[in-house]
């Protein structure tokens, strides 16, 4: 059973690496940020699985913190970093 | 009225702390302090009396919500897996009967998780929805979601637009 957990952990991590491609490629700022938020959700799942396979319930708390704080980064992006009119090219 | 709200919310927040610490008792000092702060914040941000929360409504809403989000996930998953991408996305305005306040916040968050809809903007009395298949039955879905949420919160919907 923990074997399956470990396989799934590697699988989810590879998923993260594929999403990393989107972060580096863009093309728009929103794409990068959304990929980073996807990291949040996948990261939460990964941490929950790790909590199970390593038998450390404290990791659930980390997952909780990650889930909640991802919003702060998302909100900071939407409210502060990404203002002004769309010009079709964001020097990506 | 206000005492009742304080009592209910206090019990809920204490239960939440209990859940977060998984029933340990050594951190209750901090727990009580944060529960009181959270209670104050909730009273300021959401004054009591504006909604009449219904547990039966919550149950109905939860069943509806889980059912719909399963459908949403499967549908988008199938679209993403099709060899030739066959989607007709677009933005549609839909009128809104939900009064301003908590109800709207919950409605927007729910619609974001429902099949084929994504709220892109919120105006005085309508929503702009982005859909994957334009020309579908989006208006009806919004009506259903509105009704369920209004029942849960004991809100009255505005008249027919």
């Amino acid at each position, binding site marked *: 059973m923990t074997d399956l957990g470990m396989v799934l952990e*590697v699988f989810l991590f590879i998923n993260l690496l594929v999403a990393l491609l989107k*972060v580096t490629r863009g093309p728009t700022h929103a794409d990068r940020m959304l990929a980073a938020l996807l990291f949040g959700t996948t990261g939460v799942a990964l941490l929950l699985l790790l909590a199970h396979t390593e038998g450390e319930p404290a990791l659930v708390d980390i997952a909780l913190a*990650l889930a909640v704080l991802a919003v702060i*980064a998302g909100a900071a992006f939407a409210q502060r970093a990404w*203002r002004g009119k769309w010009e079709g090219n964001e020097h*990506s | 009225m206000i005492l009742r709200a304080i009592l209910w919310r206090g019990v809920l927040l204490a239960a939440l702390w209990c859940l977060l610490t998984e029933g340990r008792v050594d951190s209750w000092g901090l727990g009580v302090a944060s529960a009181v702060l959270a209670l104050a914040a909730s009273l300021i941000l959401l004054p009591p009396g504006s909604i009449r929360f219904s547990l039966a409504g919550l149950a109905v809403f939860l069943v509806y919500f889980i059912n719909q989000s399963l459908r949403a996930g499967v549908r988008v998953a199938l679209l993403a897996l099709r060899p030739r991408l066959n989607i007709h996305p677009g933005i549609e305005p839909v009128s809104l009967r939900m009064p301003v306040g908590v109800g709207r916040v919950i409605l927007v968050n729910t619609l974001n998780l429902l099949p084929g809809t994504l709220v892109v903007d919120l105006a005085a009395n309508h929503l702009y929805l982005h859909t994957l298949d334009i020309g579908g039955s989006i208006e009806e879905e919004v009506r259903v979601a509105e009704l369920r949420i209004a029942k849960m919160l004991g809100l009255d919907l505005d008249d027919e637009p």
Partner: protein
Amino acid sequence: MTLDLLLVAALLWTAVQSLATPNLFRGVVLFIVFGLFMALVWVRLHAADIALAEAAIGAGLTGALLLNGVGHLRAKQQSTLP
């Protein structure tokens, strides 16, 4: 084992990329991603408390502050440039 190797590779790659990229915004987002990887590394090292701090501060708060900074810089650039 596989997970650890992938994790180290990803950590190093995001670190180098976030420092080397000429695009400020890309650097910031990569830094947020780096914070998440760092938290996972702490988890693998059995340091759950440091991982919690890293997830909260590195991936959450510092990311928000840096994004705020990018916003200010851009507003300033737009007001000084024609």
